[in-house]
């Protein structure tokens, strides 16, 4: 049998972790990436990575981490995966430490941990404020070692266009384009892993990097793979406005004591430092005494929206609030947050060590992604040997990292993404190798007609893109699409506007046909590639917008005021557990709870029965059909969230 190999597309944290784990088992890997992997979007991650190491002796544990994660995601996460991930988190942090990641240290030389949103524990290991960069480099170095040993072949400046499928629909390779020469070719692979990151660029300006168009996963969706929870897009509460990008001010700023406030008086024109404490509204601390500035992101973003839009208290009347670190010493700030403070200073010209920062919410992360599978054990963990782990609905095609969908439910907790990326990459390794070894032959032995056909199909597609001579500038059309998404599918969602958005996106789909391919040369020409990506972004927007339109509830980042059920302020989430228990024992009476509590719990239960499900988009040739799939919630009983 000719040599088998895996193709990994994407060299962010997820792709590199998968590559090194697969290579460690002696299996060859072809690693394909748009850019040199060391320049992947993962470098942007600032704040840190979660793992309940309990270094501060606070009684933290993987089980509490698991609970915080599932609760943070409003119970839409797949529990066995979340559990397995949280239980592996301390090991992952140790592994990274052994690899040479320069994590910050305690005076005694132990790993230091900081606080992050959605938890009351110090659980986030960090490397200054450039943790993603440091983690990515460590994995990149390990992969380079395998490259030198010959187990990994890395091809950069190549874009994944689509999967090669055999007659049964099984994925047996990938069609890729050399971004220098423009050549398109089909590569054979016994398994293909998409670790291609998130789709923030659908919204135009976001905290994401330029290559985060979601084009690879959308391509899989267009080829028939299921796409899960598309409507769950995370809006990060604290970013800095910019013309090309909305630069993030990491949650770690609040983890290190940063305070969010606005002047109590609307449109107060005073210099923020001249506004005395009693005239400042620390609205998160006031409303959420327990979690304060570290409420989860969906809650934080909604509160900022409320303060600025509903109450008109935004700084200078704009959609902006202060994020204030000026009470800390410069030395402390430089040591723990240097990276992000430099970004703020460099791009705004204001020193955040002296002046409160002006920040606002921005599109940040996609909880949704390509649908993937897993195999749980009886005790609620994951069987790491199973070839089903992380496999999409197309046999042989896998997904990992921000590209997948099961871990973060309706809202991701800060510092859980670096974890889920590395975890999925490592966890899936043995299963992928088993899958490949279980194949009867190698993809190399398959008839070349399969590959020639796929290659030809894509070559023809690009030839026709290059011949597009319409009136639309693709970059301008993208701006229009993203502005539509930004105005209508963001923090607060409304059915009438969503319905109009779905129609609007169909118009963009039509207008795409009238695009002009501005550059038709062959050598290093990014325009045809962008035109293709734009098509995919339009298709993905439909998934996001239609998913949002159809989901008539309020869950995590998906907020529809029309369907909000108001939690009584004196309600305790544990009551719900009692309520369901009484119900099961047929002991529930009208007076078991206060009437407003009872009513609230009935509504909560009703909502969950209908909506505590993953939304699944499948492509019908024109747009998405949306259906709903049950999720495993057997380990932690879903209950109302509360952070005050």
């Amino acid at each position, binding site marked *: 049998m000719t040599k088998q190999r895996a193709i990994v597309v994407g060299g962010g944290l997820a792709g590199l972790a998968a590559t090194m784990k697969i290579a460690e088992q002696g299996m060859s890997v072809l690693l394909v990436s748009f850019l040199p992997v*060391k320049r992947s979007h993962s470098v942007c991650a600032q704040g840190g990575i979660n793992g309940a190491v309990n270094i501060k002796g606070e009684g933290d544990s993987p089980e509490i981490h698991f609970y915080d994660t599932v609760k943070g995601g409003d119970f839409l996460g797949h529990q066995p995966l979340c559990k397995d991930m949280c239980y592996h988190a301390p090991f992952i942090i140790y592994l990274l*430490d052994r690899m040479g990641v320069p994590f910050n240290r305690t005076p005694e030389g132990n790993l230091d941990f900081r606080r992050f949103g959605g938890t009351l524990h110090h659980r986030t290991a960090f490397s200054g404020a450039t943790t993603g*960069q440091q983690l990515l480099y460590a994995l990149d170095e*390990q992969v*380079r070692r395998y490259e030198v040993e010959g187990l990994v072949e890395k091809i950069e400046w190549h874009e994944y266009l689509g999967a090669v499928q055999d007659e049964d629909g099984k994925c047996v390779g990938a069609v890729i384009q050399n971004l220098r020469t423009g050549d398109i070719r089909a590569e054979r692979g016994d398994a293909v892993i998409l670790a291609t990151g998130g789709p923030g660029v659908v919204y135009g300006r976001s905290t994401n990097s330029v290559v985060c168009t979601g084009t690879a996963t959308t391509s899989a969706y267009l080829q028939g793979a299921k796409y899960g929870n598309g409507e769950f897009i995370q809006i990060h509460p604290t970013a800095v406005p*910019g013309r*090309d990008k909305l630069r993030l001010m990491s949650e770690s700023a609040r983890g290190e004591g940063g305070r969010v406030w606005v002047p109590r008086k609307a449109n107060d024109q005073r210099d923020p430092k001249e506004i005395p404490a009693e005239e400042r509204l620390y609205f998160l601390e006031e409303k959420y005494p327990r979690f304060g500035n570290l409420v989860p992101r969906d809650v934080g973003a909604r509160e900022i929206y409320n303060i600025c839009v509903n109450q008109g208290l935004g700084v200078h009347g704009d959609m902006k609030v202060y994020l204030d670190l000026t009470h800390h010493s410069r030395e402390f700030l430089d040591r723990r947050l240097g990276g992000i403070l430099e970004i703020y200073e460099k791009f705004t010209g204001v020193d955040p060590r002296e002046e409160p920062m002006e920040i606002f919410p921005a599109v940040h992360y996609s909880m949704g992604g390509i649908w993937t599978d897993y195999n749980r054990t009886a005790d609620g963990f994951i069987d790491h040997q199973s070839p089903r782990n992380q496999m999409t609905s197309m046999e042989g095609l896998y997904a990992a990292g921000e590209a997948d969908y099961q871990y973060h439910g309706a809202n991701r907790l800060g510092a859980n993404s670096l974890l889920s990326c590395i975890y999925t990459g490592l966890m899936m390794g043995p299963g992928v190798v088993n899958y490949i070894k279980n194949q009867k032959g190698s993809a190399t032995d398959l008839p070349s007609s399969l590959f020639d056909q796929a290659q030809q199909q894509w070559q023809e597609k690009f030839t026709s893109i290059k011949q597009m001579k319409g009136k639309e*500038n693709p970059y301008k059309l993208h701006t229009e699409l993203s502005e539509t998404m930004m105005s209508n599918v963001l923090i607060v969602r409304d059915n009438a506007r969503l319905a109009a958005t779905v129609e609007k996106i169909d118009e963009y789909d039509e207008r795409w046909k009238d695009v002009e391919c501005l550059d038709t040369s062959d050598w290093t020409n990014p325009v045809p590639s962008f035109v293709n990506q734009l098509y995919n972004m339009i298709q993905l927007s439909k998934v996001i917008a239609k998913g949002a339109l159809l989901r008539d509830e309020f869950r995590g980042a998906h907020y529809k005021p029309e369907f909000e059920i108001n939690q009584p302020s004196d309600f305790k989430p544990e009551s719900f557990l009692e309520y369901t228990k009484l119900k099961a024992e047929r002991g529930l009476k009208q007076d078991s709870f206060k009437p407003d509590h009872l009513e609230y719990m009935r509504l909560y239960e009703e909502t969950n029965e209908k909506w505590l499900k993953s939304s699944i988009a499948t492509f019908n040739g024109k747009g998405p059909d949306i259906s709903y799939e049950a999720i495993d919630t057997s380990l932690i009983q879903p209950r109302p969230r509360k952070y005050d």
Partner: protein
Amino acid sequence: MSNKTITFKILRQDGPNQPSFWETFVIPYLPNSNVISCLMDIQKNPINSEGKKVRPVVWECNCLEEVCGTCTMVINGKTRQSCSALIDKLMQPITLQPLSKFPVVRDLAVDRSRMFEALKRIKAWVPMDGYHDLGPGDKILPDHQGVAYKLSECMTCGCCVEACPQYSRDNNFVGAAAISQARLFNMHPTGKLIANERLDSLMDDGGIAACGNAQNCVEVCPKSIPLTESIAEMGRQSSKRFWKTLFQI
């Protein structure tokens, strides 16, 4: 504000062996612009100052917050990242040129593979027994971490080698960035295990001896990495190794 404009003079080149030429673009001024947002504006309306419709300019970028190292170019004669080059702080016309020490791919995009190859040469990694659970790593004191962290911020952007008089297209000098990475791995508790292999590679042709001590690198590094300190340290380690091998001790 409405008739304020920004003028760019861009050194363009259609491909590796093609002639280069200057092209001027005049675009409307918008507040808070940087070089990349302007290049994006040109994409949306690719018309040069003579009113002629041209191919959009090709350049590379990704993170737009100066951590990925992709968008390095020569802006008004200075090597830097284009994302953090704010228009309000630049003299006009703004000239954009590709890095000169690397082969031009097209327009402002260059091929910096040589820098990544140098990382292979100096074995810039920590050798490991495996990726399974082997418990925590060594304790490391904060001061040590502080030094390692600074070195580890290198984003392979190429500013240092662009500024270096010794680094040229026709020699094989590894450059300051790689030397500094060797220092980083030689100070790691297990990275140290192959310290001698790294020193041997630095003592080879194109290694540390090629440094002419011009000290330009440290001036231009956007991450303020103490490159001259790293070069001196690796110089010390290399001569120690040299004498040790000579006397077989």
